[in-house]
C-alpha cells in the first residue's frame, strides 16, 4: 500500500514517540484483528506484525491527521494480503453486480421486529449468523455496525467508495436479518468470552 506524504510534513518519530502514538490504538487494533480472524493468537500476531511494519515506516505516522482509520487500513490490508497468500478469497473489490445505489437492499422486507430483536439479543446466535455471511458482507458489518466506524472511515480502511459501501451495508443487513429469522433460537455454536 503506497502512502504519499509531502516531504516537509515528515517528522522524526523516535521509539518513545512511536509508542505514544500507537499505544492508545492497540486495543482497537486487536479488537478488529480478532473480529476478522476470530482467534486470539492469530489476532495478536497480526497486530504485532502490523506494529513492527509501522515502526519501520514511523515517519509516515507523524504526518497522518486522523490516525485510527489509517492504522486500521494498514491492519486490514495486511489481513487481506495474508488471507490471499493462504489462498482464501477476501474481496476488497466489490463482486460483479454490486452497484453504488445506496437504496439497494432497502426493498428487502424487514422480518417481524420483535422476533428479530429477540434473536439479536442472543449473542451466540447473532455471532453465528454473522459468521455465516459472505465475507464481503461480514466485513462491512464488522467495521460499521460492530466496531462503529463511519462509512467514510470504512472507505479509508477498505479503499471502497462510500456509495458502494452504503449499498453493500444495506445488502449485508438484509442478508443478516434473513439469516437470523431463518435460524432456530440459540443456534450459535461458537461461544466467545464475555
Amino acid at each position, binding site marked *: 500500500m503506497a502512502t504519499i506524504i509531502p516531504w516537509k510534513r515528515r517528522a522524526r518519530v523516535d521509539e518513545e514517540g*512511536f509508542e505514544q502514538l500507537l499505544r492508545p490504538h492497540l486495543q482497537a487494533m486487536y479488537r478488529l484483528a*480478532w473480529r476478522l480472524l476470530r482467534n486470539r493468537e492469530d489476532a*495478536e500476531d497480526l497486530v504485532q*506484525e502490523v506494529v513492527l511494519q509501522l*515502526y519501520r515506516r514511523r515517519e509516515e505516522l507523524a504526518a497522518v491527521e486522523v490516525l485510527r482509520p489509517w492504522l486500521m487500513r494498514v491492519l486490514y490490508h495486511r489481513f487481506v494480503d495474508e488471507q490471499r497468500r493462504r489462498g482464501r478469497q477476501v474481496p476488497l473489490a466489490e463482486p460483479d453486480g454490486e452497484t453504488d445505489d445506496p437504496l439497494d437492499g432497502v426493498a428487502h422486507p424487514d422480518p417481524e421486529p420483535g422476533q428479530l430483536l429477540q434473536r439479536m439479543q442472543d449473542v451466540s446466535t447473532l455471532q453465528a449468523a454473522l459468521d455465516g455471511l459472505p465475507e464481503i458482507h461480514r466485513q462491512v458489518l464488522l467495521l460499521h455496525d460492530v466496531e462503529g466506524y463511519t*462509512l467514510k472511515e470504512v472507505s479509508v480502511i477498505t479503499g471502497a467508495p462510500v456509495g458502494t459501501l452504503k449499498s453493500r451495508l444495506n445488502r449485508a443487513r438484509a442478508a443478516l436479518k434473513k439469516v437470523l429469522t431463518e435460524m432456530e433460537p440459540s443456534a450459535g455454536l461458537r461461544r466467545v468470552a464475555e
Partner: protein
Amino acid sequence: MTDCKTIRQRFDDYQSHSLSRPDLDDLEAHLNDCAACREALDAHRAWRVAMAGLPFEPPSPGFEERVLGAVRREAKGRGHRRAFFAGVGVALAASLAVAVVLLRFVPSGGDGSEAMRVAEVMLPEHGQLRLRIQADRPVQDASLSLELPPGLELAGYEGQRRLQWRSDLAAGTNYLSLPLRLRNPQGGELVARVRVGDRTRVIRVRVRPRMTGAELGWPAVVV
C-alpha cells in the same frame, strides 16, 4: 415531504451526527409526522446496540507490552547496527560475539518464506559466537542448521561443513553458543538457519579474525 425510503437511508448519518443541517431538519420534520419511520428508527437503534454489543475475546495478559517490547527490540537492533558501521572495526574487537536472529512464529502454518539477516563479527582464533533466537511463544521441534565455510570450524566438529540440530525453543530468548576456530586469516561467512514448519529465518554471519587480546564486548549486530 421526503419519502420514507430516503429518510431511512439517512439513519446511520443521523446517528453519527453527520447529516447536513438541511437534511437533519428534513429528517426531524419527517419523523414528527411519520409513526412508521419513528418505529423504524427505534428498530435501527436497537440493531446498532445489539451489533455493537457483540463480545470479543480479550487479548492475553501483557499484550500491549509484548507488542511494544518487540518494537523496542527492533529499535535496539537498529541502534546496534548503526554503532557497528560507525565503529569502523574498532568496536568489532572482541572474543565473544553475539549475533541475533529475531523470529516470529505463526503456529497455524508458515508461508514458506525465508527471511535473511546479515551480521558481521570479529573473533580471535578461538572465539565464541552466540546466536540469540527470539521466540514469541514456545516452539516445539525447531530445526537449527549451520553451514561453515572453509577455514572456519566448530570446536568438537572439526572438518564438518554442515551441522544440524533439532531443539525446542522456549518463549523469549534462546541462545545457541558456537565455539569457533578460525583456520585462515580471511575468516569466512557462516550461515545459520532456524526452521519451524515451513518458515525459515536465516542469518549470515561474516566472521573476521581479530589479531590481539581477549576482551569481552557486544560488538555484534542485528541487521
